[in-house]
Every structure is written in C-alpha cells, then in structure tokens.
C-alpha cells in the first residue's frame, strides 16, 4: 500500500517532482502568512484610527473572514483534493454557528 504513489515509470523523476512541488507549496504558505500578518496590521490600524463603528465593524469582520479562509485553505490544506467531506463537516458547523450567533444577537437587540 505504500507504493500507490509510485505511479511514475521513473521513481527518481517522481521524487524530484514531489520535492519541487512541496517547495513551491511552502513558498505559497509563506506568502499567505505574510498576507495574514498584513491583514492583522490593517485591522489594528482601523481600531487605532478610531473610525465610526458602522465603518469599522464590517471592515474588521471582512478581514477576519479573509484571514480564516487563508488559514483553512492553505495552512489546513483544504485547497488540496480529497477535502470534500471535511468541507461539508466544517461548513455544516459554520452554518449552525452563524444561526446561533444571529439568534442570540436578535434576542438582545429586540
């Protein structure tokens, strides 16, 4: 069973190809890390700049959402194939999460 990935006729080529692919992916990971740091800076600047909350809240939530997408799809490899069921589980949880927060907020607002 450990051989199922050795599909290439030349294992050496396969090995070097995999190494290169992993390296490229790692570069992508560092890029997404830099993007997350950048988004964190923007979020803190928005608070320091003391914008009105009706401007600040949507921006902050959007930045958090984008950062979480990067974390899930790159750091947690959800962009790789074979993550269909994983995505189903997580998004089911996220749906219930959204409804729960919405419910509690509407309870206190009305």
């Amino acid at each position: 069973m450990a051989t199922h990935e050795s599909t290439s006729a030349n294992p050496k080529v396969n090995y070097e190809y995999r190494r290169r692919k992993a390296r490229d992916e790692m570069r992508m990971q560092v890029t997404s890390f830099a993007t997350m740091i950048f988004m964190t800076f923007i979020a803190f600047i928005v608070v320091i700049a003391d914008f009105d909350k009706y401007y600040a809240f949507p921006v902050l939530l959007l930045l958090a959402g984008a950062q979480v997408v990067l974390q899930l799809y790159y750091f947690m490899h959800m962009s790789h194939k074979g993550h269909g069921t994983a995505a189903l589980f997580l998004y089911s949880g996220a749906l219930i999460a959204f409804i729960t927060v919405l419910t509690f907020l509407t309870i206190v607002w009305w």
Partner: protein
Amino acid sequence: MDDMNQKFTSRTWPESPEKTTLEGKNKFLGFWLFLGGETVLFASLFATYLALKDSVPSSDHYLAADMFALPLVFIMTMLLLTSSLTSVYAMYHMKNHNYQKMQTWLLLTVLLGAAFLGFEIYEFYHYVHDYNHTFTSSAFGSAFYTLVGFHGAHVVVGLGWFILLLVRNAKRGLNLYNAPKFFVASLYWHFIDVVWVFIFTVVYLMGMVG
C-alpha cells in the same frame, strides 16, 4: 501492524503519509467532524459573549473598552499566528520525511504557544487585580472568561498534545503509525488560531471600537 512500523526513506515515503493507512484516513475524516463540532461549541460561547458584553450590575464595573489594551492583544496575535506558520513548516518536513527538522519546528511551535499562554495568564491576572473583573463579578465577566478561557484551555491541550507526541515518538522515527498523529495535532493547532482570529476581532478589536 508491521505495515505501520515499516521503515521509510525520503524516497520511499508516500506523498500523503497522513492518509496512506486506513487508520490515517479515518483519523483525518473524524478529526474534521470534530472541528465542525468545535465550531458550534465556540459559536455558542461567542453568541453568549456578544449578548452579555458590558452587562454589569452597576456603573462601578469596568467595561470592555476600559480594560482592553491593543499592544497586549497584538503581541498575542503575532505569537499565535507565527506558531501556526511554524507548524506548517513542521508538516512540510514531515511530508519530506525529515524527522529532525519536523521535531525542531514543532518544538518552536510549542515555545510560541507557551509564550502566548504566558501573556494570556498575565492578561487575566491584570483584569482580576487591577479592574476587579472576575468570573463572578458580572455576566460580562462570566461570558468573557468562559469564551477566552475556553480558547486558552484549547491552547493548553494543543501544547500538551504536541509535547506528548514529541516525547513518545522521540526515538521511533517517522513512520505511517505516527505521521497521521502529527498531522492531526497540527490541524488542531491551526484551528486554535482560526478561533483566535475571531476572538481578537470580535472581543478585542470590536470591543475597543464600541
């Protein structure tokens, strides 16, 4: 079982060692189901916090905007975000079958996580002693410590998990028995960072805006 303890080199190591064995596949799937459940758990705590934020019995209690300080939250965010990257590096070396480098990066992850935890303990101590903001002082206090404390408890579990894996497998080397274990622990660690992104945004940043 002899399958699982088979010795590999970086050339014979499978491309997705975390999902090569049936146990690894099941672990992977089961863990994502668990993360879906964790999402719901944290959602209920976030919802409670949002509903009870700044709900204090009298005006001599401090509110979110009076207590939270940006520098501390910023340092904690950077520590946890960086620890997420170091565990990505660890999994990169795991996939290349470089056990020693994987151990080094995981150790770095543990150190960053421990530093985060240290700041969090200081933060709670500071709120309790300088602001009288405790678990029982107000509904706001209960909701705050339950949400942020639950995240902190996840950090403790994540650190303990990494340390146990590192100690138990210190001399075993990397094989198909432990590769899924390291992989799943690193998924958990990333999830802790995902939750923190919402905590620093919703609790601290939005709390300071208003």
